[in-house]
């Protein structure tokens, strides 16, 4: 007679399926491919990440010793992290927050030879 009734009753007695998003967030999963981070002291500016990136969102400037990442062009595939030989690149399990303007993340790299 009422085919939907079992599902409705179950919904009444189970916890909510949604959450009030901006104030309430879920714990991120451990292996999520989120925001890209570069460890400035480990990076050697080899440029493999920039070559491998399918969306060409990384620019490695050896002259000025900067590593630049455009988070709005990035597709978060993680190919750069997989190809990074020094292990300086990693992805945080958190997604970037909504933004009002476009920005490019720039990391100043301190090469080991220079610190010696």
């Amino acid at each position, binding site marked *: 007679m009422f085919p939907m009734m079992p599902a409705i009753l179950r919904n009444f007695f189970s916890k909510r*399926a949604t959450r009030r998003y901006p104030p309430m967030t879920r714990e991120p*999963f451990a*292996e999520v*491919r989120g925001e890209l981070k570069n460890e400035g002291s480990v990076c050697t500016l080899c440029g493999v990440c920039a070559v491998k990136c*399918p969306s060409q969102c990384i620019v490695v400037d050896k002259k000025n010793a900067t590593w630049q990442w455009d988070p709005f062009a990035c*597709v978060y*595939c993680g190919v750069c992290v997989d190809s990074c030989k020094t292990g300086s690149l990693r992805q945080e399990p958190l997604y970037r927050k909504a933004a009002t303007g476009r920005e490019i993340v720039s990391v100043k790299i301190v090469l080991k030879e220079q610190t010696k």
Partner: protein
Amino acid sequence: MPVSTIPFGPQHPVLPEPIHLKLTVEDEVIKEVVPALGYVHRGLEKLAGTRDFHQMVQIVERVCGICSMMHAMCYCECVEAMMGIETPPRARYLRLIWSELNRLHSHLLWLGLFADSFGFESLFMQFWKIREKVMDLQEATAGNRVIVSVNVIGGLRRDLSPEQQQTILNILDRVEDEMRLLEKPLLGDYTVMKRTKGKGIVSAARALELGCVGPTLRGSGVAQDMRQLGYEAYGDLAFEPRVEKDGDCYSRLKVRYREVFQSIDLIRQAMEKIPAGEIAAVVKGRPEGEGLARVEQPRGEVFYYVKADGKKYLERIRIRTPTFANVPVLLAMLPGMCLSDVPVIVLSIDPCISCTER
């Protein structure tokens, strides 16, 4: 009766993606349909000239978000066959598991959208609530919610730990349980049957003649499924295509509803048999010559053609997506139907327009 022309789409409440149908109607009965495509063409095939063949994996994943795993898998299979690479057995099983998870969430998405197309909003929400569990599984195992991006040429980039495998099985038990609860409201409901039974009928012979694929073809009684080819690990598992005889919207609905359970069953079988070992083979050199690959997507057979001349960039890549094959049969379904049935019939082939136009 005077004849009038009514535009359906490209923007229409029932359409998730833009397709334009020029409907010629006489007293609200469809006489002729002329489609117009090209609203979301992105030129992804052309990118083969500027991205090397490893980077193309991420490009083809973006042909379609919903079945991204199968696009990448099909492309990788094609290039692997050209280069003579044998993928490790574990990678073949893992690809199967992820592609069935993709099929699960795609079918759940469609079941929700289809319920929405005939105005059953609460059923739509129920299906999408279940789908969220599968999306979470993909996010937890592969790292991304929709475009899982696990494929590379030669195998996979991610492995499944025993704990992750157990989580998948546990959550799939709950998905199955909740899906059983929705069988009656979906398939036994008077309104649903009234809106879908006898609508958009296409016979088996006509469907085959028009080159129809996937659940649309199986809904007409033809037991054709590309998974029968035994690509990846499908050859090792017990598998029977789900077929319904009537060829109407209700049959196609039933096929997809039953395929959800089939996907859950295939993942369980794969989890039992999955061998240990490497997940990716070593890739050396560049592809040369021509290659073809076919894979069953949630919407039907996808076809990849790759031509390469041993250089860094591929010479040509051609993708034939399932919706492209199903548009002619959609045009054959519509004449003779009432104008109010058009949204339901259009949705019944599960149109994926961004796939079709690439």
